[in-house]
């Protein structure tokens, strides 16, 4: 177990290293940030001074090693655009994205898993077929379009919910969150729904597929023959067994949404990390883009590790063993 953990950690470091090279080269090839940053009225001398100050006069490998050296000491560079450390900038945006994603996934699984179970257990009935068909719709409507329709209906026409922004926040352990105020919740409602809908569809389909398969398994038939109550069968035998793929997907989705809720955040002007990423890419704010990708890779690596540990907890057959 300890060796396994060590091995996984080593792998993770290798992944982070490879990603750092790839992303560094990628942002380097896009364009020169000086041309976007500096005042167009700057003289040639001011421009040259600026390039030297940002280290852009160095060859790419020298820039990379400077970055690497600083990164190893925990310094991911300073944002060209905002003038403050890139990591601080990203982390300051994290709580907003975090609460959005957590609420969306909670909503999606709280509604999706029961519905999925219901559908899976009534495989083939008309109601079940209807749910399955509409779930395809929920899955395939583009996020930005859905977002705009939500805004149009609930903000512009009905005037029930605010169209964008984060609303009032309160500090919880020193971190600002919106979900503890009414105003914050009203701002959260639409982005959460927008983000939850495709995941809701995903949860329904995943649970339904698992449940309809599990229903016909020998252990379920045996339990039934033994006279176990059907509620207990569902809870103890079916649900527990189909949770593994669901948790895997939830883990992957969590990482993906934290990193790339870009569209939802842009449509609802939600001040999260995704919106920061997209602006930074447009402005060629290289340190922020690189730090962002590194941070996300880090989160993915950690989430995957946790998912593996969760398997072991849920399924006694899964053993965490090292590859020799």
């Amino acid at each position: 177990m300890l060796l396994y953990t060590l091995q996984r950690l080593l792998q993770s470091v290798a992944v982070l290293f490879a990603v750092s090279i790839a992303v560094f080269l990628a942002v380097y090839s896009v364009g020169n940030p000086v041309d976007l940053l500096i005042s167009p009225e700057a003289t040639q001398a001011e421009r040259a001074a600026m390039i030297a100050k940002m280290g852009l006069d160095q060859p790419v490998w020298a820039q990379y090693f400077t970055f690497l050296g600083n990164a190893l000491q925990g310094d991911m560079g300073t944002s060209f655009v905002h003038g403050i450390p890139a990591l601080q900038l990203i982390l300051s945006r994290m709580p907003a994205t975090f609460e959005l994603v957590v609420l969306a996934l909670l909503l999606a699984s709280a509604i999706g898993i029961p519905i999925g179970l219901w559908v899976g257990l009534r495989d083939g009935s008309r109601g079940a077929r209807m749910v399955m068909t509409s779930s395809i719709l929920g899955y395939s409507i583009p996020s930005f379009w859905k977002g705009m329709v939500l805004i149009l209906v609930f903000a512009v026409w009905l005037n029930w919910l605010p169209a964008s922004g984060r609303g009032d926040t309160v500090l919880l352990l020193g971190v600002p969150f919106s979900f503890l105020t009414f105003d914050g919740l009203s701002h959260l409602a639409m982005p959460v729904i927008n983000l939850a809908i495709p995941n809701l569809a995903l949860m329904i389909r995943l649970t339904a597929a698992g449940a309809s398969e599990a229903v016909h398994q020998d252990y379920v038939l045996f339990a039934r023959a033994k006279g176990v109550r059907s509620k207990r069968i569902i809870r103890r035998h079916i649900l527990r067994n189909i949770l593994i793929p669901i948790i895997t997907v939830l883990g992957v989705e969590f990482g993906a949404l934290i990193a790339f809720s870009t569209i939802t955040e842009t449509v609802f002007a939600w001040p999260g990390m995704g919106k920061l990423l997209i602006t930074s890419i447009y402005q060629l704010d290289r340190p922020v883009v690189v730090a962002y990708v590194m941070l996300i890779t880090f989160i993915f690596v950690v989430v995957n590790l946790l998912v593996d540990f969760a398997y072991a907890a849920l399924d006694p057959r899964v053993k965490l063993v090292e590859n020799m």
Partner: protein
Amino acid sequence: MNYKKTQACAVAALATALGATSLSAQELTIGLSSEPTAVDPHYHDLTPNNQLGMHIYSMLATPDANLMAQPELATSWEAEDDNTWVFKLREDVKFSDGTDFDASDVIFTFCRVMNNESAIGSTGSSVVSNFESVEAPDPHTLRIKTKQVEPIMPEMLAGVPIISDSIVEHDDITFDLPNDCGVTGTWPSIDDFNVGEAAVGTGPFKLEKFSKGAEISLMRNEIYFGTQPDWETVTFVPVPSDGPRLAGLLSGDYDMIESPAARDVAQIEENEAFEYVSTPSNRVIFLQMDIGRGDSPFITTEDGSNPFQDVRVRQAISMAIDRQAIVDRIMDGLARPAYQFIPDEMFGAIPSPAPMEYNPEKAKELLAEAGYPDGFKVTFHATNDRYINDSQIAQAVAQFLTRVGIETELDAMTRSMFFSRRSGREFSFSMGGWASSEGGAASFLRQYAVTTDDARGVGGSNYGDWSDPEFDAFVLEAISTVDETKRSELLQQAEQMAVDKLGFIPLHFESTLWAFRKGVSYDGRADQFTLAYQVERATE
């Protein structure tokens, strides 16, 4: 349980939101199209930053609609000789923290501009770096000696927000840069301003909170020396996407928004509860041609020559383009055709320039005369996310030119690619934009049109290497002439020469739009600033 909780919350949220949209009378919320990157007024010379700065800080002078300096913290100024300027300061001004404003604060500001580690081309450093000495004969008089002649000193200082010397520990403040000007503490950093500690100014508002990406809230400065604004609190919310910003206005989240998309104006017009204002800006959209190189990378001609070197070809291009059609059809009338590089009202402009004719037949004749009866081929580069409707305008230009025989292929790209390729002088033919600043006509001419001269710091954006010694002489003389009448004449002559020789081809001036709910009114500004203290509460 989670399900129940979430459901209950959602219902509660809906209920409160129903009652939450009405705003009290003295609160103003504005949806911004781009976000300021810092509260530090000297960090980065960008429109959103400068605009936020003008709420919190004041300058010695303030730019009027045509960017000429008007008194603000200084009551009057004069040039004693070519290199000496004297400014008289107001005596009744206090900073928002209650401390008095005097010459020491101004000198401290100049020093800070030069001691600004994190800045991106620090706002004001180009003017202050030209100072030989700054002295205060008395607490409300400043005498500035310059190294080089700076004829537009008041206009340049209208871009330098004054901060308070109370934000650092210091002895007597003198303009002694090598010895830290008498500052004993650490120079304020960008973060000190962002958190509000150092954001002490003499402007109409005080900073309440700056939360990046989310909102900026301001409170009225009750001891402001000028006219009190109509609003007790102002909130700026950055919403860069056009659709959501407009939705925010329509749903009542914002009282006012910046730059609604031109295509959405009809929707605002139809709706009784909202209004908009369109103000011609000083941003000109123009074509830039590679004139310097005999062999230009994106041009194909039969004999391998560069047709742009012939003034007749440039005239033909100008004549092939129907500027009015671009303004009417693509810009929905929210722009005006440009026949020079700055609006007619600005300093050094030709008062009423002759309209540039649209005449495709004559364009063809001119091309034939220049030796290109069958035209030539060129790739035209433009941005697709920088100027209003830029990619459609570029398409129209390409079609107009193709019609007279110049086979034009458009390559539109994102600005991050465009600007770095353009400064690498990769293009043969491109479309750019330029918002003229305090220099009036000199602003465009010295940056784009004069022959590139690194030592002098002029011609930095002359990517097409257009070079005309006679023209250069006029501009260079103008930018070192203190006498206003003479400078204006010189600039007019230079502007006329630029228009005649068509080293650049002007297309149109963009208009800036603002939309707001009934009960709020804004006049709009040519410099594209959204200033909450100029937004008025209309009597309903």
